[in-house]
């Protein structure tokens, strides 16, 4: 109560100063302990024997080939899901029809499925004892324990990221700009490329950033479908696991530091894009700029 006299600015709608400090302290302590400390540990362990040992670990042939495979898998999975996201966003964001909400829920489905199960389903279909296993063996095609399996599992787990951002964005934009374009004689394609896509580019980028991070970092699903052959079917997260289990801690954490760097860049991009979007939203609706200064 005496605090009120000391801080005349505090109204009845604020917690006492000591409560505020305590809550901020708990927040910083908890996040520091649970988030910052493990992140720091990655770099600390990676550089434990100095930058030269780190460089040597990162440039091992097996690590480099794991990086290459991760990039290949990502380069296939992300564009596929981005293309799907654009197509789905047009159908689900610009039109209203029965079953639309069901479809939107189904698109989000992979987010709530265990990564291990996401890998398992492809083993059931393409594995040696799966649906198409015998057929594939006859034609000498390898899906599981090889790159195609890695791509499939990655496409599955990263499936919703671009689509959900774009569907939400296109829905929010409404159809007025497109209708204006079409009524002025523009074709569907022209309308999409010249009207819809430019307005959705930030949402697309946001989805791509998240999709890319998950694609490069996925572990559980690819672990199920990978053959775990070093230099051949190991993505970078799988290489981290192998190095770690061989007690090559500097190697494991050096490889992990590359992925942690990716995570930091992802967070940075995400924050920048979110702030950009908030600014656009504020400019768009000038009426509610005063009292709701929300940074999301």
């Amino acid at each position: 109560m005496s605090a009120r006299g000391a801080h005349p600015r505090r109204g009845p709608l604020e917690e006492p100063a000591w409560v505020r400090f305590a809550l901020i302290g708990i927040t910083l302590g908890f996040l520091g302990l649970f988030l910052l400390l493990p992140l720091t540990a990655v770099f600390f362990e990676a550089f434990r024997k100095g930058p030269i040992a780190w460089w040597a670990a990162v440039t091992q042939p097996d690590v480099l080939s794991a990086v290459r495979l991760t990039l290949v898998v990502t380069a296939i999975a992300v564009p596929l899901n981005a293309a799907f996201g654009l197509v789905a966003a047009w159908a689900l964001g610009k039109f209203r029809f029965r079953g639309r909400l069901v479809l939107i829920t189904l698109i989000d489905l992979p987010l709530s499925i265990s990564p291990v199960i996401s890998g398992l389903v492809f083993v059931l279909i393409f594995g040696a004892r799966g649906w198409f296993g015998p057929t594939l063996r006859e034609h000498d095609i390898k899906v599981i324990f090889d790159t195609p399996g890695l791509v499939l599992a990655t496409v599955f787990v990263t499936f919703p990221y671009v689509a959900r951002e774009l569907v939400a964005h296109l829905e929010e934009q409404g159809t007025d700009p497109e209708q204006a374009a079409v009524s002025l004689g523009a074709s569907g394609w022209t309308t999409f490329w010249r009207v819809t896509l430019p307005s959705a580019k930030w949402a697309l980028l946001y989805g791509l950033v998240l999709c890319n991070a998950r694609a490069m970092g996925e572990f559980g699903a690819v672990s199920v479908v990978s053959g775990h052959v070093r230099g051949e079917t190991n993505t970078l997260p799988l290489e981290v696991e192998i190095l770690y289990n061989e007690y090559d801690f500097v190697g494991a954490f050096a490889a992990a530091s590359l992925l942690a760097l990716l995570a930091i860049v992802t967070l940075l991009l995400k924050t920048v894009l979110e702030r950009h979007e908030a600014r656009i939203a504020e400019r768009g609706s000038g009426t509610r700029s005063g009292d709701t200064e929300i940074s999301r």
Partner: protein
Amino acid sequence: MVRSVRGAGRARTRVLPGFGLTLGLTVTYLSLIVLIPLSALFAKAASLTWPKFAATLMDERVVAALKLTVGASAAAAAINCVFGAIVAWTLVRYEFPGRRIVDALVDLPFALPTAVSGIALTAVYAQNGWIGSLLAPLGIQVAFTPLGIVVALTFIGLPFVVRTLQPAIQDLEHEFEEASASLGAGRWTTVRRVVAPALLPALVTGFALAFARALGEYGSVVFISGNMPLETEIASLLVITKLEQYDYAGASAIGVAMLILALLGLLLIHAAQRLAVRRSGSTVR
């Protein structure tokens, strides 16, 4: 194609072309990548006879793994509800230096590959780690015990609770708090009687999301858990073990059980949430 466009109903959407084409492609791709593969899981589990399905799930090792997974997931989600609520409240309501950086950091568990989280948490909480070495003299062992699993699941679940609560706190009507204060309620009473009930639905949703995610988590847990059968073996690891023994049906049965548990959790919590909404609706408004 024409019919489905007409099905779209509203005159204002009918002008735009491409509905049939894009919807067709969407449904096709969704079926190929998600729906058909998932149906394989259920088909495989259904290939077991009932007694065999039940026997797979009643196996001592499977029961232990499922119990541990559900228990650790619930504990982690509960921890996140307490600390996540404090974090969300602090980030929305208070100004302090570095707030934006802290806010961005909350998403780290989303962005950090789970394998990296796993080895990092193990390094920190192992007996010779930064925190583990502090806890060891107290007789507390985190890594390679069920406690370690809870730590890992807390790590990956945190953003779900915080990110669900933040918009709810932002949307709180200041008028309610003002009314409560002007009626003579102290700040604590206002928080307890006005703010908390209004945030309860979001908190429950956050719990459900964190819980569902934790049930299926694999990467961040396997390194810290020790993976001892009957003691620290989680359900998703058991799925992989079964797969490695080419027991596809057994793996699918556990997979189906995990999916059903996650669904049950979501349904239960959905019911609780509706109850909470109805209650808070009668007391607050």
